[in-house]
C-alpha cells in the first residue's frame, strides 16, 4: 500500500462514514449558491489569474497570464536575417498537427485531390485525441435529433456559442460517426449493430458513443492507419515554428526539425492549423490531463499573422484529476466514476457537494474545500486533495463493477499498488480543455485568408464551456470541413504565393513598443520538467 500514515488516518474516517453516506442525500445548489461558489473559487473568476493582452489582433481582451506570456513573445527567428530562398516542400495544403483534427483534415483534403503534407511535433498521433476515454457525441438515435443536440450544446456553453458553428457540429455529427464506422473504428455496439450510447454531463439524450474506455485512442489509431495506407506524406518531430505570408494571405510555414535543429521551408496554397490544446502551460500552476506537446503553438502562430482569438478567458478544469500518487498527478479520473456513484469526501470523511453538478461547480467546490475550508488531505509533495470514495461504488453496484466498467483506470492505480475497489483515491482539479481559441467560420477559415483552424485550438463552437464528448466530435467534424475547404480553395489558387516574414517584423515592433523583454520566446514547443538543479549548471559547448 502506497498511502502515508496521515492519509491512512484520514482514510479511516472515510470508511467510518461510508455507511451513513450510502443513504445521505445532498441537494443540488440553487443558482445563487452556484454563482457565489464559482465567483469565489473557480479560477476563471479569479482576477489575479488573468491579464489583458497588450498587442496583437485581440489586444484589450483578457487571458490567463501563462497564455499572455506566449502570445506576447518574440520568435526565435530574426525576420531580417532569415533566408527563405530554398523551398523544401511545395504543396497545396499544409496540415499542422497530427491529432484527430489534423488526420481528419489530411484525409479529406487528399480525397479532394489536394497534394497534402502533414507535419507534427511529436510522433503522429501523440496528441490529446489519443487520450480521450469517455466518448463522442452525435444525435443518431430515434428519440434524439440534431436540434435537441443543438440546444444541449448552446445551454452547456451558456449561450455564448457561435450558432453557425454549433449548427455545423450537430448537423455533421451523424455523417462524422458514419465515416468513422466505415473506416473501421470499433464502436461499442449491441449485437444488432445499434450503437451503445449513454449520458454525459449536460446531455438530454443518451448520445455518448464510446469505444470502451479508449474512445479517442481507437479513433486516432484508425485515422493514422488510414493516412498511412493512403501514403499521404507526413513528417514527425518537425513542428511548425512560424507561418509565412505574402504580406496579407498565408502562404506557408517554417518547420523546425527537433533533432537536427535544421529549419525547413514549406510553401503551401492553404494552411490548416490543428495543433490542439494548451494544458502544458499550466495555468495558475494547475497540473494537466493533456499530452506533452499541448503548448498553444498554433494559437501563437495564428495570432502573430493577425488572426483574432475568442473566449481565451475560460479554461475547463476537470474536477477530478489524480492528486496522488505523484506519478499520476493531473491525470484524468473520468467523470464516469462519479456517474457510477463515487463520492467526494473531505479529510474528516464528510461530503461537501452533490457529485453530479457541472464540471465548473465541482471543481470550485473541491478548491474551496482544500483552500478556504482547509479540509483537504495533504500529499507528500505538498498538494492538498480530497478523497474520491470508490469502494462505495462496489457497495452500491456489486463487487467487481470497477474492474468491469473502468478497466484502464483500475489498471493504472493497480500499478501503484492502490486497489481503488478497496480504498478511496485522492483527487484535485486539473487543467483539461481550452474552451476558446482562434476565431473561425463554419468552413474553419480564420480571419486571415487561406489560414484554417480546426480542433481544440479553435474557439466559438463550445462557447464558454464544452460538454464532454463534443470535442472528439468537433475534431472530426471541423477537421473534415477544414480538409474540404482548404483543398477547394487551393484548387482555385493558380500561382504559389510569395514567402515573407514581414508580419513578424511588425509584431516584434509592436512588442518592443510596449516594452516586452527580448528573452521571452514562443512558441514553447515543449515544456521543461528538468529539475532546476540540473539546468542551472547547464554549459553549452557544442554550439
Amino acid at each position, binding site marked *: 500500500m502506497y498511502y502515508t500514515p496521515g492519509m491512512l488516518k484520514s482514510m479511516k474516517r472515510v470508511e467510518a462514514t461510508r455507511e451513513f453516506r450510502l443513504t445521505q442525500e445532498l441537494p443540488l445548489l440553487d443558482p445563487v449558491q452556484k454563482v457565489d461558489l464559482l465567483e469565489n473559487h473557480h479560477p476563471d473568476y479569479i482576477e489575479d489569474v488573468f491579464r489583458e493582452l497588450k498587442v496583437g489582433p485581440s489586444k484589450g481582451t483578457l487571458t490567463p497570464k501563462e497564455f499572455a506570456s506566449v502570445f506576447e513573445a518574440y520568435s526565435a527567428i530574426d525576420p531580417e536575417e532569415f533566408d527563405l530562398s530554398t523551398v523544401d516542400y511545395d504543396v497545396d495544403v499544409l496540415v499542422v498537427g497530427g491529432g484527430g483534427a489534423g488526420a481528419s483534415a489530411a484525409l479529406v483534403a487528399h480525397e479532394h485531390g489536394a497534394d497534402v503534407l502533414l507535419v507534427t511535433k511529436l510522433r503522429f498521433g501523440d496528441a490529446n485525441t489519443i487520450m480521450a476515454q469517455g466518448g463522442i457525441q452525435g444525435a443518431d438515435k430515434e428519440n434524439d435529433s440534431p436540434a435537441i443536440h443543438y440546444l444541449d450544446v448552446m445551454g452547456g456553453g451558456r449561450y455564448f456559442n457561435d450558432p453557425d458553428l454549433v449548427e455545423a457540429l450537430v448537423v455533421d455529427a451523424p455523417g462524422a460517426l458514419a465515416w468513422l464506422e466505415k473506416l473501421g473504428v470499433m464502436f461499442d455496439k449491441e449485437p444488432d449493430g445499434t450503437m451503445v450510447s449513454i449520458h454525459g454531463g449536460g446531455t438530454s439524450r443518451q448520445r455518448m458513443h464510446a469505444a470502451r474506455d479508449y474512445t479517442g485512442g481507437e479513433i486516432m489509431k484508425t485515422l493514422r492507419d488510414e493516412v498511412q495506407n493512403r501514403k499521404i506524406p507526413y513528417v514527425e518531430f518537425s513542428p511548425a515554428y512560424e507561418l509565412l505570408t505574402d504580406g496579407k494571405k498565408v502562404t506557408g510555414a517554417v518547420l523546425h526539425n527537433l533533432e537536427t535543429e535544421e529549419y525547413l521551408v514549406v510553401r503551401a496554397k492553404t494552411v490548416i492549423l490543428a495543433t490542439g490544446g494548451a494544458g502544458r502551460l499550466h495555468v495558475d500552476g494547475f497540473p494537466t490531463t493533456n499530452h506533452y*506537446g499541448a503548448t498553444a503553438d498554433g494559437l501563437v502562430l495564428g495570432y502573430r499573422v493577425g488572426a483574432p482569438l475568442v473566449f481565451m478567458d475560460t479554461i475547463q478544469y476537470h474536477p477530478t484529476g489524480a492528486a496522488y500518487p505523484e506519478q499520476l498527478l493531473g491525470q484524468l479520473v473520468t467523470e464516469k466514476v462519479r456517474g457510477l456513484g463515487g463520492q467526494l469526501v473531505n479529510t474528516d470523511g464528510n461530503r461537501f457537494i452533490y457529485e453530479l453538478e457541472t464540471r465548473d461547480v465541482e471543481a470550485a467546490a473541491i478548491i474551496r474545500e482544500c483552500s478556504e475550508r482547509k479540509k483537504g488531505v495533504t500529499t507528500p509533495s505538498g498538494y492538498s486533495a480530497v478523497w474520491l470514495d470508490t469502494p462505495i461504488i462496489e457497495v452500491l453496484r456489486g463487487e467487481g463493477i470497477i474492474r468491469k466498467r473502468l478497466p484502464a483506470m483500475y489498471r493504472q492505480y493497480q500499478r501503484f499498488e492502490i486497489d481503488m475497489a478497496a480504498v478511496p483515491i485522492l483527487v484535485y482539479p486539473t487543467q483539461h480543455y481550452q474552451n476558446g481559441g482562434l476565431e473561425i467560420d463554419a468552413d474553419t477559415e480564420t480571419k486571415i485568408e487561406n489560414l484554417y483552424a480546426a480542433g481544440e485550438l479553435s474557439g466559438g463552437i463550445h462557447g464558454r464551456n464544452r460538454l464532454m464528448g463534443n470535442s472528439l466530435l468537433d475534431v472530426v467534424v471541423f477537421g473534415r470541413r477544414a480538409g474540404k475547404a482548404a483543398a477547394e480553395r487551393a484548387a482555385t489558387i493558380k500561382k504559389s504565393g510569395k514567402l515573407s516574414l514581414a508580419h513578424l517584423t511588425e509584431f516584434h515592433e509592436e512588442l518592443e513598443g510596449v516594452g516586452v523583454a527580448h528573452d521571452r520566446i514562443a512558441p514553447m514547443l515543449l515544456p521543461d520538467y528538468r529539475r532546476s538543479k540540473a539546468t542551472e549548471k547547464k554549459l553549452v559547448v557544442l554550439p
Partner: protein
Amino acid sequence: MAEDMATIYVMGKAYEVPKDLTIMKAMEYAGYRFLRGCGCRGAFCGACGTVYRNVDDYRLRVGLACQEVVQDGMYLAEIPFFPGNKAFYDIEDLEPNSETILKLYPEIFRCLACNTCTKACPQDIEVMEYIQAALRGDIAKAADLSFDCLLCGLCAARCPAEIVQYNVALLCRRLYSRYIAPKAAHLENRVEEVREGKYDKELADLKKMNERQLAKLYDSRDIEPGD
C-alpha cells in the same frame, strides 16, 4: 545515499533519483529533456517503451517509462521508435478472412507460440492469443483481445519470429468493425434524414432565437432517464 533515493543507470550512466518516481520523471529529475520517448505521459500513446534490467538479474524486462517506477540498480534505455513492418491496404478492397491477413502479414505463420509477446505487454494483453486467433481467421476474437493495445512496439521488439503484432491487431480491429460487426441502421437513417434536410427548418428557427428564448427551451427540456 538517502533512504528514499535510488541509483538508476540511464544507458549505462548512473544518476541518483527519488525512489518513487516513474522512469520518465526520474530521467527528467536527472536532467533529461525528452524530444522522443514521451507523449501522453499516461499510458495511452505508446511512445515510451523502455527496456531495462535490474542489478543482479540476467532478465531483460520491458515497460512504459511513464508508468514503471524506478528501482535501485535499474539499467535502462528507451526504445522510442520501432521500425516495424506495416502493410498498406485499401480497407474497401479487403475481405474479412484469414487469407486477407495472411496475405498482408504472411510472417504470422512463423509464430512459435512462445508467449514472449504476452509476457512483454505492459497492457496485460494476451498478445499470443490474438496472433493465434488472427492465424485461425477468428478476426472478432483478435479484435476483442487486442483492443487495449497502445502500439508501443514492445511485443514486436521481443518476438523471435519478427512478427509485428500490433499492426496485425489494428488490421483485425478495422476488418471486424468495417465488415463483421453489423452496421448501425439508426445511424444510416439519420445520415439520410440530414441529407434530405429534415432538420434544416427546426435548426434555422433555433439559430434565430436570442439567449432568453433559448434558455427557456433549455431549462424546460425533457431529459431521457439514464441507466
